[in-house]
């Protein structure tokens, strides 16, 4: 019996064991391996990945790019245009725009990433609970999410930041950034909760979840070994794009004067400080604005590349 079984199963398409062993190394395996396979053939991925690396290095080691002190101000050189000495010129306070732009990357990326992490944790937990428990809890959490979604983003931020900021008249850098990060996460979680909820609901009705239950898996195991790993793709894609949009949102709030403030160095603050001088000294605003756009674009492109690679219909 074993003899014919083995042969017939081979005919059905199981690779021959001897042939399978050497071919194994370059064989694409699993969802993430397939995704990587597609990603590495996409130009847009490599472009965004390279840009991301540049921005990350910029954020981590700004001194590699400039040896100037971004805080050092020479009022005499206020609004001096770009020159070979200062590539991006000087700002209103006579500070080096290039140095400030480089140092601004760190703030923007920290705010974008941490606000996204907060959003993923808050939205992810709420979405997964809503989807897994279902029934009234799902309805309740979904309605709460809709209330948050109904609040216009900027309006919500103005209300929260406007009421929180004056409490400490002279807050430190960390405090200023923490508040902005929390506001972004608090206002942004419902979209992620929706994505997580729908992904988990979809996974929940798959046979393998039923099968896992039938073989004795408890709720904890079902959520962490079956539901979450299978819901990760859309969450990951949205999170990557969200980093970009949060960097933009931070700039918007800073521009309105309710987000980040000096002593923090950020692109948004640089733009906000120089909007009035756009006709006389556009450089002080345009260079940070260009970096901001490029950084947002990097994350959005990366997210879209990953989304395309994960979408089985585009394969």
């Amino acid at each position, binding site marked *: 019996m*074993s003899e014919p079984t083995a042969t017939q*199963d081979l005919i059905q398409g199981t690779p021959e*064991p001897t042939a399978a062993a050497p071919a194994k190394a370059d064989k694409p*395996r699993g*969802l993430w391996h397939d995704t990587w396979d597609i990603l590495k053939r996409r130009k847009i991925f490599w472009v965004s990945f390279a840009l991301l690396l540049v921005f990350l290095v910029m954020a981590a080691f700004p001194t590699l790019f400039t040896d100037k002190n971004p805080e050092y101000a020479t009022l005499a050189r206020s609004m001096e245009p770009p020159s070979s000495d200062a590539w991006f010129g000087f700002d209103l306070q006579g500070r080096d725009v290039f140095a400030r732009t480089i140092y601004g990357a760190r703030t923007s990326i920290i705010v974008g990433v941490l606000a996204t992490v907060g959003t993923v944790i808050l939205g992810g937990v709420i979405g997964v609970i809503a989807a897994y428990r279902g029934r009234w809890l799902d309805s309740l959490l979904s309605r709460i999410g809709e209330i948050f979604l109904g609040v216009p983003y900027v309006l919500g931020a103005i209300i929260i930041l406007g009421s929180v900021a004056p409490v400490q008249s002279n807050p430190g850098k960390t405090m200023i950034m923490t508040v902005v990060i929390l506001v972004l996460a608090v206002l942004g979680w419902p979209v992620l909760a929706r994505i997580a909820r729908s992904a988990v609901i979809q996974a929940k009705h798959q046979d393998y979840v039923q*099968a896992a239950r*039938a073989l*004795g898996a408890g709720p904890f195991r079902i959520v962490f070994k079956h539901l979450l790993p*299978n819901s990760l793709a859309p969450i990951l894609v949205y999170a990557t794009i969200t980093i970009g949009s949060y960097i933009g949102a931070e700039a918007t709030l800073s521009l309105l004067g309710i987000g980040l403030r000096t002593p923090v160095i950020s692109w948004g603050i640089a733009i906000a400080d120089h909007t009035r001088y756009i006709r006389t000294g556009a450089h002080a605003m345009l260079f940070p604005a260009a970096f901001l756009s490029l950084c947002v674009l990097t994350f959005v492109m990366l997210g879209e590349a990953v989304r395309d690679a994960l979408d089985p219909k585009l394969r």
Partner: protein
Amino acid sequence: MTEVLPETKSGGTGGGALLEVENLQVEFHTRAGVAKAVNGVTYSVNAGETLAVLGESGSGKSVTAQTIMGILDIPPGKIVGGEIRFRGTDLLKLPEDERRKVRGEGIAMIFQDALSALNPVFPVGWQIAEMFRMHRGMSRADAKKKAVELMDRVRIPAAKDRVSDYPHQFSGGMRQRIMIAMSIALDPEVLIADEPTTALDVTVQAQIMELLAELQRESNMGLILITHDLGVVADVADKIAVMYGGRIVENASVHDLYRNPAHPYTKGLLESIPRVDLKGQELYAIKGMPPNLLDMPTGCAFNPRCPYRQEKCVTDVPPLHTISGTRGSACHFWREVLDGDAQ
């Protein structure tokens, strides 16, 4: 050994079968109304025995199995009545965490489509090993070793090389073998196979059935085989329960059922199997449609499609008449059905 096993395996059951389902009733509450999916089903299986549950889609065979496993979605499902006794204990009365211990260890289940029943993001070996890590607290390395052993046992060629492959890299038959490996990992006493071969080629179907039969012989487990395919059942089953409209309409040994069915529905099923000697003639089909669970016919659920229908069939629900021993038929006119076949 066979004498010893019932002692150890079903000790303390007070003479009952290993797994007994008694008068089980399950409803689904939907917006359109209440669907009585399972309507007083009774069956049992002993160690080493194979019970085939035969029925078409919507007959309640899978819902019964899901209820036994405790994986029925409640709501919309609702268990209205009945008992499911495993080694004498009513599973329906157990708290959830104790019930979970029965799953996998006591009763395990395999599913129709192994591709969707395996988690796509983990290697198969990991998934089998997970059973040992979860229930036996084994180390990663030991569990993986056991996984390879099991894959060998279900005859996956080059198991060692394939242990870290993903489900989609296997053929349909191989996937079902992996599903079987997972389900027998903890030596369950009862294995429920819900249409294990429906998604497979005919040649592979035979191999999988043979594998199941062999594993059953080795471990003396009770097997509940849920299927709509009469051909699959013939070789392996000891007894058959035919379901229609949420009820058991006929109970019989395989031999009796095939030779002389006692219910018009079973008879219709047997007559609608294509036969080589009747080539060229029109294939018999049971006329009409399966009953709508939201709007069941009065009396016998089969009456709108039944060639034996009389006044009584529309008014009275037929009880399961005992024909002889364990043989039963839920037809008012089972005598005529039996005789008709003898003519």
